[in-house]
């Protein structure tokens, strides 16, 4: 009906695992998270069976220590993925902000000020992503591959080949001692607090609704007065700041920073978010799922390392879990399709490569076809 040519590229969604339109979101999410709980319990039982003192507070402390920064970066990434975008530059931003903090501190800045500067750098980097994605409308996957390289390169310019180590001991002790009165590492506590905040924001505020609506139906969101681009821009800035926070914690935990800090962590962060049940197509995901995913990854790493499982096998297990996490939800539908294929012959299956094409499995398809008049 618009004069806009209909040849404008359709939705960039490619292969949605399932057509979920018939079941409310929370039911599906609940199901996925139930699965995560089962996996977690299985991992814990496994770990305890292997070593009787696996389930002690030290293990929890270590898991938190190892996963803290990754977990913190996973929270804003979850929101970005829910809006249908992605941020691959997270680990580079972690490195860059850590380097900026280290460099400034080594030049005599007070540590507090250096941290603020790192957060500002995070916000600026996030804003760069945000401008390119939200304002210029560039594909976030390409943009953030670019900024992944750019941020890491800037870190290299700032710091390489030096390693900054002279941080105040009272600050670097956060990598060794738990928060007083608890058995949890500082990064764990920060993550848990943030997770609660993110959970409330995502699930109970206007901003959260705006994020979900943006991911599920960007146009409808715009028509409901949601400033889709501003939402996305804000989330990228948030991501930058959170990654900078993670960079600060990472630096203090290690009591040192070099330009390659955190190299390659982006894939871990993405894997955790996706394993947590956040749909790569946007619109779906819960904080609980991501928290569970973090705990599972951390626990698994501890169990496997203690079992002296080679790190290579750990990689295979991570990859396998990731694959299962996307294949499983689509599995039921795939079986149904195969059955349909057997019933109706090969033609249907040949046309089955794309979504929303082959026989529609929901009532709305008919509505769609009927109303375009």
């Amino acid at each position, binding site marked *: 009906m618009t004069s806009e040519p209909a040849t404008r590229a359709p939705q960039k969604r490619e292969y949605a695992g399932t057509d979920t339109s018939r079941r409310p979101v929370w039911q599906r999410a609940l199901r996925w998270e139930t699965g995560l709980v089962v996996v977690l319990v299985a991992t814990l039982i496994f770990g305890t069976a292997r*070593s009787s*003192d*696996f389930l002690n507070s*030290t*293990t929890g402390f*270590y898991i938190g*220590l*190892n996963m803290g920064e990754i977990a913190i970066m996973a929270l804003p990434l979850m929101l970005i993925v829910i809006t249908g975008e992605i941020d691959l530059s997270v680990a580079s931003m972690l490195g860059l902000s850590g380097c900026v903090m280290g460099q400034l501190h*080594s030049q005599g800045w007070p540590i507090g000020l250096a941290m603020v500067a790192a957060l500002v750098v995070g916000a600026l980097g996030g804003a760069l992503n945000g401008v390119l994605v939200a304002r210029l409308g560039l594909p976030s996957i390409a943009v953030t591959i670019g900024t992944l390289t750019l941020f890491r390169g800037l870190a*290299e310019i700032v710091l*390489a*080949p*030096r*390693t900054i*180590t*002279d941080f105040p001991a009272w600050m*670097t*002790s956060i*990598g*060794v001692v738990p928060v007083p009165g608890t058995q949890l590492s500082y990064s764990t506590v920060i993550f848990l607090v943030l997770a609660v905040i993110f959970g409330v924001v995502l699930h109970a505020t206007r901003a959260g609704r705006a994020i979900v609506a943006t991911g599920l139906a960007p146009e409808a969101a715009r028509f409901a007065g949601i400033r889709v681009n501003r939402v996305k821009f804000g989330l990228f800035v948030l991501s930058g700041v959170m990654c900078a926070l993670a960079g600060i914690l*990472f630096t203090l*935990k*290690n*009591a*040192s920073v*070099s*330009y*390659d800090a*955190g*190299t*390659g962590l982006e894939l871990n962060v993405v894997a955790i978010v996706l394993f947590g049940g956040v749909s790569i197509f946007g619109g779906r995901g819960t904080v609980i799922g991501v928290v569970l995913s973090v705990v599972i990854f951390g626990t698994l*790493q*501890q169990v496997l*390392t*203690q079992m*002296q499982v*080679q*790190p*290579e096998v750990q*990689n295979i297990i991570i990859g396998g879990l990731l694959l299962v996490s996307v294949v499983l939800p689509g599995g039921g539908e795939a079986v149904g399709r195969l059955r349909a294929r057997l019933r109706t012959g090969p033609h249907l299956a040949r046309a089955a490569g794309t979504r929303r094409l082959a026989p529609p499995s929901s009532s709305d398809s008919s509505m769609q076809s009927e109303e375009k008049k």
Partner: protein
Amino acid sequence: MGNTRRWRRKAASALILAAVAVTAAACSSSSSSSGGTTPTSSSTQAASGTIKKGLLVYFIPKDTQNPYEVIADNGGKKALTELGGKVVVSSGTADTAAAQIPSIQAAIQAHANAIVIAGNDPSALCPSLNQAARAGIKIVSFDSDVTCGSSPDHLFINQANTQQIGESEVSLLAAEIGGSGQIAILSAAASATNQNAWIVYMKQELAKYPNMKLVSTVYGNDDPATSLQVLQGLLSAYPNLRGIISPTTVGISAAAQYLDTHKNLLSHLTLTGLGLPSLMRKYVEDGTVAKFELWDPGNLGYLAGYAAASLASGMASLTPGSSFKAGTLGSYTVLAPTAGVGPSVVLGPPTVFDKANINNYHF
């Protein structure tokens, strides 16, 4: 950049000197305080005079895939097998401190007796190692030291005297190119401790050769492909380059392979550095590389294994001048801390390999 770096280096050295002073003081006190425990245990040990059986030693290499590290780990395994103990090799797949931390934690939880670690980062591991030390685990570093100051106390198994390596690398090259011309360094990662330490001494040594000019240091990240790429760029940027020092086994091998296939470059370009004879044999035999040096990484791991076991059994201490036995390698004496290096033992002088002797070495 060079200037700032030098400045930084000076500042760091000053800091380290200060730290060492503190350490020295702490050492004397700690040796007395540890003397409170060690002598009792060592007195019981001394009575039997043997190393405990069933020791568990965690070897934490830079990563599990580096061939050099694998040879060293196997040396450690050999040592502990001789001593009736057990070695667990645990690390990540990437050369990062973050990937090593879970292994340290695993060692703590497994109640290991000692950790032998090749640090991916001079200080990032300190907090974790401190925890290990508090749990009563003896810490030995090898290959690449961790600089944690006095905390935790640890013994560094030095493959060779750091200064000596830096100097000998330069003198090897100087001898080959007649002490003049542009030279460059092909290093591993820009943040690698041992590399940077050697490079500092190389630069000091270069002062003795006024006609030799270090024009560039490039970083191949111990990845053959990256090493090749930066080498090509180097050759393109400095066509008059006379010599390359690559103090890393991956870098020198990648560079040798390139020169081997571009023999026209050999007319004016000389390569030396630290390399594994097994990787370099072909290039030495066909004349691509005349001389390079290294120690036996297997022996390094073997020595580290013995040192860890001895420390854990109270048969060795960090006190300078004390000594312990390292199986077939004989006896080693703990050296006093020097600038930037705490208590250490040195494996021995590196071996210079050339056409005449390379076939005698099989690591």
